[in-house]
């Protein structure tokens, strides 16, 4: 049977993709950012996930103002890195896991989640930057990916409670899939940032730290944070953190934090990264 035993949270800052793509990630000035992923790149080689359910938000790339799905699940065979206005990122095609994705879709809808099924889409930095940060520069992504796009662009985003519940339902669904697959869920986005208005550039380090401190054990409280509170405390784009709650919901109640990284700033944003493992029962 398929199983989930680890999850990961990370910001998905476009600038970091750009830096990797132009070959600057080894430069000393970026060491404080990229060194926080050294552990991760080793860890992922040991974990060898077969499939990553990658939770991210589309940034006006595949979805425009016509249709704005709250939760969209990518069931396609493959997803091309999107041209976000300066050509597509020179990274490999993202291979999907359509059998598992359709299984999840069916299970989630029957569990009462109102998914939008996506059979064709390009994926933007929200999805490809986490892959780059975790896997580095590779010829092929070493796992298949199921994109799970969450609306955080148009108010309101789904609530924290709803995201936590979606994570739990995802786990249920994964555990019913007959193939032996090592599945990970990644929550991406955040941490504090605000890209507009006179208040642009807001960063709330204590808030971000508190969020990461609470995610292992006190996640029920985090799920109660409203979007208005996220905006007030951590900026208009701070509500992307609900996507980390989907990852957390997909893991057991007891998890171990095996890695953490926090850095301010990357362009307009606070970068956060965390890794959880479950204890594996033998």
């Amino acid at each position, binding site marked *: 049977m398929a199983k989930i035993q680890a999850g990961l949270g990370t910001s998905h800052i476009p600038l970091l993709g750009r830096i990797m793509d132009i070959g600057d990630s080894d430069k000393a000035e970026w060491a404080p950012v990229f060194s926080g992923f050294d552990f991760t790149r080793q860890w992922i080689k040991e974990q060898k996930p077969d499939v990553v359910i990658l939770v991210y938000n589309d940034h006006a790339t595949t979805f425009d103002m016509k249709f704005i799905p709250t939760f969209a699940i990518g069931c396609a065979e493959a997803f091309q890195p999107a041209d976000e206005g300066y050509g597509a990122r020179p990274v490999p095609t993202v291979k999907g896991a359509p059998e598992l994705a359709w299984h999840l879709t069916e299970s989630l809808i029957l569990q009462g989640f109102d998914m939008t099924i996506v059979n064709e889409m390009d994926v933007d930095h929200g999805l490809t930057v986490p892959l780059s940060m975790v896997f580095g520069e590779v010829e092929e992504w070493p796992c298949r990916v199921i994109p799970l796009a969450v609306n955080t662009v*148009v108010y309101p985003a789904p609530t924290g409670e709803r995201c936590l519940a979606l994570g739990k339902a995802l786990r249920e669904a994964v555990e019913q899939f007959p193939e032996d697959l090592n599945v990970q869920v990644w929550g991406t986005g955040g941490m504090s940032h605000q890209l507009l208005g006179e208040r642009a550039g807001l960063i709330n380090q204590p808030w971000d730290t508190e969020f990461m401190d609470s995610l292992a054990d006190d996640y029920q409280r985090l799920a109660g944070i409203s979007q*208005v509170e996220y905006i007030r405390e951590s900026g208009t784009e701070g509500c992307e953190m609900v996507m980390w709650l989907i990852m957390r919901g997909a893991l057991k109640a007891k998890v171990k934090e095996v890695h953490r990284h926090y850095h301010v700033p990357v362009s307009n944003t606070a970068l956060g990264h965390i890794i959880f493992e479950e204890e594996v029962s033998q």
Partner: protein
Amino acid sequence: MNSNNNNYSDIPGTTVFDGNMARKGFHLNQFCMSLMNAANRESFKQNESAYLDRYPLTDAQKQAVLARDFTQLIALGGNIYYLVKISSCDGLSVAAAVSTMTDLSTEEYLDMMRNGGRSPEGNRYLKEQQ
């Protein structure tokens, strides 16, 4: 400044992209979206006004696009993820575009970011600023 009229309208310097803003800015944002296409970017650069006339924008929206007045564009229903498609087309970084909405120059803004960003202290409620 903000353009909302809701339980988040007491947050200073912040406009939440809600239904009201989405209605106001629908065509403005769809215009921005069209700049994802290289041929469209070319046409826009060649004659901005003519290109804008393809979209049913208000005069104020057109003027604000021509003037790259992001503060005004946000007030008129633009969403930042859409608006940066204009500044990308101009070859500007997101940070440079964003900084124009603050009372800082781009250099001062980048300095503030390097020093840990804008503090939330005093920036949570309008009433704190009076």
